[in-house]
């Protein structure tokens, strides 16, 4: 009895999913919406499955993962050290804060034309515009993490004789990690958004964004829904992985 109760408890997250599928199926069954616009759940799942196994959806999925990952890593590699550097001096950060906040608030999609002109229509443009958007989010979080480092810890390092560089490396970097991870999590979500939009509008031949637009133009609705779900799963997976990595690295967080 207990084991059954437990498995019912642990299955809780599935209830909502099953409920949604049931409503979807019902709406499709009684034909509330045009069946061309709303295919059945089973047709969509079949399209998702076949697309992933025959390679067509899988190919686009991998292309999007690749672009997102490369852009995100580029953003992180530049933004983390730069954020620590800027954050270690409050007057310095204040002097660039407006620029950071301004471009952080500018929709990255508004920058597409500029990056297209500067870097052409290839992957380079997409990577750079994504890294720019995600990088600013990471940068500002890292800098704030450093600026909000516990004063006592910095003093402890100072009284033990740590120099500027040692304090930066041994204390400020670690102190900023919880906030850095908030930036990384927001950054990777934003990177995925920018990549998908870029694939839709910057002359692409692959990627989930390209696939979505193509399926929509050709009215291949199950294929379009399948691509949406693939993108959703990708976003969820990226977020989940960053939470897991964060838990492992920032083990002291919130304690």
């Amino acid at each position: 009895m207990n084991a059954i109760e437990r498995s019912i408890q642990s299955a809780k997250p599935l209830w909502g999913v099953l409920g949604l599928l049931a409503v979807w199926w019902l709406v499709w069954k009684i034909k509330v919406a045009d069946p061309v616009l709303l295919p059945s759940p089973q047709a969509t799942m079949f399209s998702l499955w076949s697309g992933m196994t025959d390679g067509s959806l899988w190919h686009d999925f991998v292309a999007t993962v690749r672009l997102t990952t490369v852009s995100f890593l580029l953003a992180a590699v530049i933004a983390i050290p730069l954020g620590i550097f800027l954050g270690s001096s409050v007057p310095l950060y204040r002097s660039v804060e407006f620029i950071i906040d301004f471009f952080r608030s500018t929709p990255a999609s508004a920058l597409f034309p500029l990056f297209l002109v500067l870097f052409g229509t290839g992957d380079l443009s997409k990577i750079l515009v994504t890294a720019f958007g995600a990088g600013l989010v990471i940068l500002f979080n890292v800098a704030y993490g450093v600026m909000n480092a516990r004063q006592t810890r910095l003093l402890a390092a100072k009284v033990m004789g740590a120099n500027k560089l040692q304090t930066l490396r041994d204390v400020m970097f670690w102190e900023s990690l919880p906030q850095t991870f908030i930036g990384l999590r927001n950054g990777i979500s934003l990177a995925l958004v920018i990549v998908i939009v870029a694939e839709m509008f910057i002359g692409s031949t692959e990627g989930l964004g390209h696939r979505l637009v193509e399926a929509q133009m050709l009215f291949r609705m199950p294929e379009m829904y399948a691509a949406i779900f693939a993108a959703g799963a990708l976003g969820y997976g990226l977020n989940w992985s960053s939470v897991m990595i964060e838990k492992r690295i920032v083990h002291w967080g919130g304690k």
Partner: protein
Amino acid sequence: MALKLAKPEPPMAPPPEDSRGRNPELEERLRWFPPNTHITIRGLDKAFGDTTIYEGFDLNIPRGKITSVFGPNGCGKSTLINMISGLIPYDGGEILFDGKSLSETHISYVFQNYREALFPWMRAIDNIHYPLKLMGVPAAERKRRVDALIESFDVPIDFNAYPYQLSGGQMQTICIMRALVVDPEVLFLDEPFSALDYEMTLLMRDRLQKIFQERGTTMMMVSHNLEDAVWLADHILLLTRKPTRIADMVAFEADRPRTATTVSDPEFVRVQKHCLEIFLKEASVR
């Protein structure tokens, strides 16, 4: 580490006495170094904005003794030890340790907030290793020194745990060990017990006394609690309201080890009463 000579340089031959039998050079030297003094503070100035805390403040901290600092709120108790230990700058005056500057002296500092003073990303043992690492001590030597320290402390702590897995008393013990591992010439303690419960405070001050008896390290402790301040101290430095002056430097000479019953000892009661009277005169409660 180069030892700077006393300042001003001590004369090689006994200096000549003047007509009235005074010896100005020796007097000048003794102004800096009265016998048995470890830390000399001369003409210290400190202001926060328009508020003057210290002006022309002179103080001698005796060598190999525990000096408690006690006084009304906001009189600058912590400010004083923070200036001496170099955590905050001062506006004027000079502070010397045996004639050496701070940068030529090994000091350690135990903070009130142990949770924020330790590095939670390091295990307890690595926290203790860290100051030695900063000093460039090789790993094998480091391990030897930390092991010896752990043995002398003889406390049931899991040194492989992270700080947040330990109790408050254990964390403060790790802080004290981290401070002692470098064999400091002076140990500063800023209200080290104020975040601990009474039982843990008794244990920790006993532990601190044991360390002091074994090592004889000069200690300077800020305390909020008069009982702790007197119990541990050889001298209680009583400060006035700001601008801060020395209200009194009271000696408490009870034999060590002092025990939990020392607090009912007539001499303890007398000293504590005396300190309290001066404190009440200075504090705004009255």
